[in-house]
């Protein structure tokens, strides 16, 4: 390609380069040649370089094709059906040229009937290959092979790109005469269903999603046996072409949100997607907000409840997390556990988490504010203790608090990065440093330790790790403000957070739902966990066309 370009340094290099890529296919104008045969919407439109395929465009065709499919593997087949910008004809030679220098590409031919199969050796299931391809095609005649290829499992590949993606997603491409077929032979790669380590519950199912999207979708189907559960496959990432599956329940989810999610996923032009938490940052309404805007969870039961509540769920291949959209701020404070306990306990837990949130955000900052500017707020009985413990500390409360908060964050981060066994050591060392030594050395006061420790503990009460991390971060500006302007600064900080939160939208719906816009019915399943008989409606945020979820009478 580069040769051709440099060789034909004609008057307009652009068209030369363009032509060069079709060079070895002969002189035929590419778009004209392929337009009639293309079945994909985006095929004729994208006449750019062959590799620079708009994943989103290709995905649209695949997506609509797979809607309603039931087998989890259908995503792959359809992902393979994506093709755009066909420039070279689909021949064995061209296909092999695309994959030159690829040691794991294998092909197998059957001399008796001239059938050849090409596949990536490590992507496919060898057993399936044997049963669906090797065994039936060995020693059969041309005619028989033709009949065999009429089976539904063989899907026609129309373009070179189509075939290339099929191979990349784990299919074999079977050539017979001038025709090519795709045969899905995907092998399940990665760990199988395991317990999630980030979101554990005491009572309730212990399985968690894994990196393998096939397993995840199977898990979902197993829990939600409804033909209304729709799965739409898209490919996201210019280079990685990561498979992303949008799922929703037809008739419960609002199509507007489904449309918005799909549209945003299609508009992603990013080279690589590795994780659901990364994906959400590319599609959320407010990328500069410090709060996560979509609930991301590894728990299948949670995801099922989101789906039945009318939300749209996104799975990303290679990520054990699934995204639920639209989400509200308070959704991050709920856990499946709440529903598995008696409703009184569930309610208490929810309130506890909100208290935890308040403590995390405000406790240390309030300590700094009070001990710097508002000593009169401390009752005199407590004041004696406090001054005694503060008297050894040479720093102003602001430095004292920042010192301890940073230490705690260091310990947490170190604990998170280290293997569990060493992590325990860190915990013990940290406990001693923070607990006793810091006070005895005159670095901090006892009361501050209580404030810092309780706000750290409180932050871990929040079930969503991402949200808990965001909340821990916003403590620091608040501590600063409290250290500079006391309560006034603290309130200014809180006002800023409130204003910021009010401005956040989530797929166009309010992030602060159900406080603003206010919906008292939703409060029953937000701040408290009402008894099931009272949870009669789906959340107002999702604008479900089917609002009622509980038709039982008491």
């Amino acid at each position, binding site marked *: 390609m580069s040769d051709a370009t440099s060789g034909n340094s004609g008057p307009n290099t652009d068209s030369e380069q363009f032509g060069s890529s079709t060079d070895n296919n002969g002189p035929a104008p590419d778009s004209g040649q392929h337009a009639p045969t293309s079945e994909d919407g985006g095929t004729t439109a994208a006449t750019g370089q062959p590799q620079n395929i708009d994943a989103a465009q290709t995905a649209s065709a695949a997506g609509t094709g797979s809607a309603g499919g039931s087998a989890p593997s259908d995503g792959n087949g359809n992902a393979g059906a994506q093709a755009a910008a066909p420039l070279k004809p689909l021949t064995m030679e061209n296909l092999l040229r695309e994959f030159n220098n690829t040691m794991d590409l294998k092909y197998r031919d059957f001399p008796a009937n001239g059938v050849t199969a090409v596949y990536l050796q490590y992507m496919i299931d060898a057993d399936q290959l044997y049963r669906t391809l090797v065994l039936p095609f060995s020693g059969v005649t041309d005619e028989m092979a033709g009949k065999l290829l009429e089976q539904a499992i063989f899907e026609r590949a129309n373009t070179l790109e189509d075939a290339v993606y099929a191979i990349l997603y784990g299919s074999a491409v079977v050539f017979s005469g001038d025709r090519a077929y795709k045969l899905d032979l995907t092998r399940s790669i990665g760990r199988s269903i395991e317990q999630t380590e980030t979101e554990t519950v005491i009572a309730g199912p212990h399985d968690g999603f894994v990196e393998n999207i096939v397993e995840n979708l199977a898990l979902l189907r197993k829990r939600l046996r409804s033909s209304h559960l729709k799965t739409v496959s898209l490919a996201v990432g210019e280079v990685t072409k990561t498979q992303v599956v949008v799922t929703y329940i037809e008739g419960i989810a609002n199509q507007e949100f489904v449309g918005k999610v799909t549209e945003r996923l299609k508009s992603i032009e990013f080279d690589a997607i590795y994780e659901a938490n990364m994906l959400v940052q590319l599609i959320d309404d407010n990328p500069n907000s410090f709060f996560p805007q979509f609930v991301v969870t590894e728990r299948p039961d949670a995801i099922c409840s989101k789906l039945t509540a009318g939300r749209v769920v996104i799975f990303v291949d290679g990520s054990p997390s699934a995204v639920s959209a639209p989400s509200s701020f308070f959704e991050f404070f709920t856990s499946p556990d709440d529903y598995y306990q008696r409703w009184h306990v569930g309610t208490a837990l929810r309130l506890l988490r909100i208290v935890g949130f308040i403590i995390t955000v405000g406790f240390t900052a309030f300590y700094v504010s009070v001990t710097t500017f508002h000593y009169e*707020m401390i*009752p005199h009985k407590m004041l004696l203790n406090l001054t005694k413990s503060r008297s050894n500390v040479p720093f102003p409360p602001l430095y004292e608090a920042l010192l301890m908060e940073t230490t705690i964050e260091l310990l947490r981060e170190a604990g998170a990065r280290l293997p569990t066994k060493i992590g325990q050591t860190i915990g013990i060392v940290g406990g001693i440093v923070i607990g006793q030594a810091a006070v005895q050395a005159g670095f901090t006061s006892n009361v501050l330790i209580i404030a810092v420790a309780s706000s750290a503990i409180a932050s871990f009460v929040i079930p969503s790790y991402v949200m808990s991390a965001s909340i821990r971060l916003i403590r620091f500006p608040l501590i600063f403000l409290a250290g500079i302007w*006391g*309560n*006034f*600064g603290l*309130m200014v900080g809180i006002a800023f957070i409130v204003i910021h*939160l009010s401005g956040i939208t989530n797929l166009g719906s309010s992030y602060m739902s159900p*406080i*603003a816009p206010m919906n008292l019915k939703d409060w029953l399943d937000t701040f408290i966990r009402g008894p099931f008989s009272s949870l009669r409606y789906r959340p107002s945020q999702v604008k479900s066309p089917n609002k009622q979820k509980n038709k039982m009478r008491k």
Partner: protein
Amino acid sequence: MSEKLNGYHVAFIIVMIELDVTVFSLPRILAENLGTNGWIGLLLLSAIAFANLGLIHLFHRVGRGRSPFEVAEQSIPRLLLKPAYILLAVFWITIGSFVCKKYVLIYQMVAFPTTNANLLYVLLAALAFYLLIKGIYNIGKAMTIFFYFTVPAALFAFYFKGQWELYRFTPFLLKGGTEGHSLKNWLEVYTIFVGYEISLFLIPFAEPKSLFKGVYFGHSLTTSVYVLLIIVSYGFFSFEQLQAMMYPLLNLFSYIELPFLNRLENLIFTLFLFSNLASLVLFGWMALMALRRAFPKARKNMLELILIAASLGIGSYPKILRDSEIMLRVVLYLETAIAFLLPAVLLVLAVYQARGKTPKPESGTPV
């Protein structure tokens, strides 16, 4: 702009704009101007405010949900309106600024005697700008949350159950005011309600059905909070004490002792930062609406920036608390007049337009 404010949010907006720093001196103002059992006078004045809201409601009916600007522009040439818009905008941002400045000056007095009040004011103005650029729908959401932060503080009133005595109310009705009764005295009390006229400008932004339900509910809520606080103050302090104390509510709250916290006025007064910020933002929003009408082609966020810059300038003018109070009182008197006159004039125009020919309502919401 896709969604409209519903009644709840309108109610919270009304509460938050009416509730501001003046509430801390309210029991004194009442004792000075109306005398004993001033809460009865307050209820009467609240009824007058209701009448004013009724006027706005009537305009809403007659004007068929058109925005006040549309109605005005249909009958009055733009050349005349433009300076009026600018004047109103300056006036409204002045009110907001004076309210906030007074709050900041009191805060300075209470907690930060050596901090420059203008510095604290800059913080508030920055927040106001941040909120103002988010549009009225998001302002409504923020007001709702601010409401939940602020108004429950009134529930501390029940803390005083033990010390509260009915006999401190005295059997006299509206006696003992420092200057006797005059229009000016009653007007001074009335100014604590100023702000409800924002409902006039909310017309195109709220759901027409629930708008006035929200407005009336919001105003009743404010009145009940006021009455609750006044009744507590009247039964807790003696009448003479009320007249002597500058900010009786501050004294009232400083009496509270919780096991972990004392001197709660530090916290509660700081919480009122939200309601004063709300006043600045909401008056600023009214000013913004007027300015948008005067300069429809202004760049995005430019008018908001100008308003907040103006607010910084205006807010820096009152240097001491006494000046600030006098200035605030003057603008509030004027605003009271505007609150009555504006809907009245608009109503006349709307009636005139409805009679003359069938009005052609502009489609869509005005910017």
